[in-house]
């Protein structure tokens, strides 16, 4: 599955809820204000662990818009909208943590 999170984990509980309900084969894509959680200050060790496994993606355009491209944490893979489409195609059912 593909889980998308579009809100900052500082503002809302959606990333944490997603992490609580994610299975071993799912990947996470951070979009919109959700990319704030991709910065290396991201306060979730579980997200970092998933990133190490290559299971965390973030939208490059949203990162750049918020001026945090130099702060992206290790192992988070950046994608453009075409990459977003590929993730949707490859990972089956999409769940949006809106």
């Amino acid at each position: 599955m593909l889980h998308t999170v579009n809100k900052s984990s500082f503002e809302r509980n959606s990333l944490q809820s997603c992490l609580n309900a994610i299975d071993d084969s799912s990947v996470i894509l951070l979009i919109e204000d959700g990319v704030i959680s991709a910065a290396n200050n991201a306060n979730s060790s579980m997200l970092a662990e998933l990133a190490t496994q290559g299971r965390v993606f973030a939208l490059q355009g949203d990162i750049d818009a918020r001026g945090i491209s130099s702060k992206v944490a290790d192992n988070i893979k950046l994608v453009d909208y075409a990459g977003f489409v590929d993730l949707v195609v490859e990972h089956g059912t999409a769940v949006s943590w809106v």
Partner: protein
Amino acid sequence: MKISIQINEGPYQHQASDTAYQFAKAAIAKGHEIFRVFFYHDGVDNASRFTVPPQDDRNVVNNWASLDIKNADGEPELVVCVAAALRRGMLDEGEADKNGIDGNNIHPAFRISGLGQLIEAGIQSDRLVVFGD
């Protein structure tokens, strides 16, 4: 692949509609079919032909219209939920007449229909992606 999209927020207030548009455009560019875009909740406000954004900003409604998403019968597959639309003052000519309202504001690239169209999109498409607040 057949992909459908649900949009829960209106233009400008939230990025949801912008992201969904960029996603749809990229999917089409990659050769996928956008089966339907379903506008629900405040998402119905994306279908207003009355919007006049500042000249130096993007036009969210025209962006959607430019994708020209239609089915084999030539009908728009930018579908606005009728129940959500009536609550929020989004009307086509038919709904305006039926409800005695002196005007309508739906852009011709969109059509108003029922919630069944969302379920049908889920059934007919390989993927359904939700964009919201």
